[in-house]
């Protein structure tokens, strides 16, 4: 057993090529991940692809230049510089084409990078006897044959790019997030853009020798994308993307060792699987989380039914347990259980010695829904629905309990007191708060109020602004409001008048006129 572990995990580490691959690969993958964060947040993923391909022209020109001018073959430094120049030129051309033409940026990227890539291809075949570039290597990379120079290049690129990002974190963050604001405080956004592009070019160029031109894009964006799904802060995303890059190399290299496949492919494959794993289980933006959210979603209708049931019981001072609530509410027991759980979380209900009761907030919510329900019933009756269907339809419609909608119903129906079944509709307790200015028509018997606004054309002598009165009993059919101005003086208003007058509400002297409209705290 121990031997197996040794052979599987430790033995590969004894090989120098594996050590070099691990070191070089990790350096490159880490910096790829970090810079990839900016690449995906700026929606430049396609540009990464372009940069890596454009290199071919740069590498061959660099090779050719040193070969023809100095007679040095395969000079690594010049090839690297050539590649970076080619990448920057490509970016410049892309910018130029999208600026001067009506083409969008992705189109100009597609045009320019294939063009520069093709130029490289032509160069390679034209000078086939001078240039000895292994095209297969260029496409596939060879992480398991990393040379010492590659390691140096990787180390220098990695350390310098990471330092630059660390130093210029704020300008990079701000230009990525809000370029206009960045410009307004004097950050040179074009310079920052070029800095980022050049860094990306360096990173991509040094990545190509490890995993090849196609797969380097995967190393650039996949770890960053995985981190994006997990982080709500850019600084953490950068760190995590770097870590994901390193784990991809680690996992990929072992994979390559065990099943004996190409290192570059194994790394990127591992990276992709890692991403899929994150996508599945990410706590907030993952698929599993989304599925759980959908599964745990409680139909609003059930919550409303529970609220109303609890209100009904509470008004008769009956204590109910969670079990009894399930029996009272006409909905699947599981759903009611979940609804109660959710309501606990929102502090709409509280449990006291096994008994479930509404909190002050829950009571408020329940009364709002009851009011909406009864107004909807009244409305449906008003538009001619048979009375045996009223309840079930109102049950569905009561979820429209938005303040404005309910106020509309109330005012359209003439502020009714009772629903078609004869139950009292709770008053508009949201607006009827002492000190508020409301339409007089909202007031019910027992309220005291002062006149605030009185349209001139209304003939309601002797009512005047500033006059204090008590509301007397309401007449129905047609609705009439009685105002008691003093012991012996009363006036009666019709609906139009009551709607037009605005008053400041004071306390009501009927604290509990009917069971269903008990005063709140």
């Amino acid at each position, binding site marked *: 057993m121990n031997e197996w572990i040794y052979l599987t995990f430790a033995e590969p580490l004894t090989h120098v090529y594996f050590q070099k691959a691990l070191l070089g690969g990790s350096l490159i993958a880490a910096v790829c991940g970090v810079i990839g964060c900016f690449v995906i*947040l700026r929606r430049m993923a396609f540009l990464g692809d372009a940069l890596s391909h454009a290199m071919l022209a740069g590498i061959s020109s660099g090779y050719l230049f040193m070969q023809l001018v100095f007679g040095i073959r395969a000079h690594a430094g010049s090839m690297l510089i050539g590649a970076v120049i080619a990448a920057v030129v490509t970016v410049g051309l892309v910018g130029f084409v999208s600026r001067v033409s009506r083409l969008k940026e992705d189109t100009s990227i597609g045009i320019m990078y294939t063009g520069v890539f093709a130029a490289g291809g032509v160069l390679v075949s034209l000078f086939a006897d001078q240039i000895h570039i292994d095209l297969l290597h260029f496409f596939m990379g060879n992480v398991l044959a990393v040379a010492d120079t590659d390691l140096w290049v990787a180390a220098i690129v990695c350390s310098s790019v990471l330092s630059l990002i660390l*130093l210029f974190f704020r*300008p990079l963050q*701000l230009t990525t997030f*809000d370029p206009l604001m960045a410009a*307004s*405080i*004097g950050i040179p956004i074009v310079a920052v853009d070029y800095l980022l592009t050049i860094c990306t070019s360096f990173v991509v160029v040094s990545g190509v020798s490890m995993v090849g031109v196609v797969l380097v894009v995967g190393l650039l964006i996949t770890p960053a994308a995985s981190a994006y799904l997990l982080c709500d802060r850019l600084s953490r995303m950068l760190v995590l993307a770097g870590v994901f890059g390193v784990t991809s190399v680690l996992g990929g290299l072992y994979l390559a060792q065990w099943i004996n496949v190409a290192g570059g492919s194994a790394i990127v494959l591992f990276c992709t699987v890692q991403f899929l794993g994150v996508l599945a289980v990410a706590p907030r933006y993952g698929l599993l989380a989304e599925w759980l959210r959908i599964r745990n979603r409680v139909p609003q209708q059930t919550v409303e039914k529970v609220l109303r049931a609890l209100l009904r019981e509470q008004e008769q001072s009956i204590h109910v347990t969670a079990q009894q609530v399930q029996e009272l509410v006409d909905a699947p027991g599981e759903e009611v259980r979940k609804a109660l759980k959710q309501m606990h979380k929102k502090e709409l209900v509280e449990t006291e010695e096994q008994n479930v009761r509404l909190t002050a907030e829950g009571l408020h919510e329940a009364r709002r829904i009851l009011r909406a329900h009864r107004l909807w019933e009244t409305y449906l009756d008003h538009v001619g629905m048979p009375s045996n269907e009223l309840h079930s339809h109102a049950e569905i419609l009561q979820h429209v309990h938005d303040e404005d909608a309910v106020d509309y119903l109330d005012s359209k129906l003439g502020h009714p007191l009772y629903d078609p079944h004869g139950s009292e509709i709770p008053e508009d307790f949201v607006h009827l708060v002492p000190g508020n200015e409301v339409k007089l028509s909202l007031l019910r018997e027992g309220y005291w109020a002062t006149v605030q606004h009185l349209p001139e054309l209304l003939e309601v002598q002797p009512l005047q602004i500033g006059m204090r009165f008590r509301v007397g009993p309401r007449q129905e059919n047609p609705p009439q409001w009685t105002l008691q101005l003093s012991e012996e003086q009363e006036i009666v208003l019709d609906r139009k008048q009551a709607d037009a007058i605005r008053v400041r509400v004071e306390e009501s002297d009927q604290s509990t006129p009917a069971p269903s409209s008990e005063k709140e705290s």
Partner: protein
Amino acid sequence: MQTIMNEQNSVPAIEVEHLTVSYGPTPALLDVSFSIEAGQLVGVIGPNGSGKSTLIKSILGFQKADFGKVKIFGESADKAIGKVAYVPQRGAVDWDFPITVLEVAMMGRYGQLSWWRDPSKKDRQIAMNALEMVRMTDFAHRQIGQLSGGQQQRVFMARAMAQGAEILLLDEPFAGVDAATERAILDVLYRTKVSGKTLVVVHHDLATAAEYFDQLILLKQRLYGIGTPQAVLHPELLSEVYEGKLKSFQDLIPDETEKQAQRRKISQTEQSTKSASGRHRDDTVGPRLSADQLRPMGGEA
């Protein structure tokens, strides 16, 4: 000394002189001149493509002008960088960006920070105070995509305040928010104004323009009007700018009494300290319309 003080007080917050900007043969702005006093809440109105965002960029100091200049407190706009804060349109922001509310507010401090130095405790405090002012401290560690529309707008207001800028430019702050949110944003605008800042707001809804702003700028390449809403929302002027595409211009002119009542309410709640510069409205021109007549136009535009 006294004269210098006086001179500084009389320098307008924003002064635009003969500004012409073009992106080709048609000018985006043509010979635009105006000045805005400090402490005003100014609305910029005009049809689509009328040069509103070009004007914003010019005031921010990074739009190259063909001719003319913009001065911020008497100083050339490209030198006054940082004195003007920009609040972007909601649609222009990537709400999935991995960034928290506090981090956005902290961005307001970036202009003052040297690039090698981390934000200090004081910067943090300024950012928190700015969040406090827009009542967003409870959400400081939320990712910005998890906020409601009005909250999102407020975060960017906080960022502008943390910048310490004297002038705030807002690009359509009321676009795509519901009526209650609009009120909440407006409340923040008034509070900012009362604290002495100058606000320039690009606005689309003519129906509310008169009610919200002290002054209006009517723009369509050229400057068609600047001044009180009564003066600018002139039926003939509007029909010229909007080419008769609006049904009724009469309704746009506000009932002065209602507006004043609203103003009183706000100054009561905010205990205005700066009253000297802003209040100069005794011009009760325009037909009187009741609130109910104004409302139907005020729907979602």
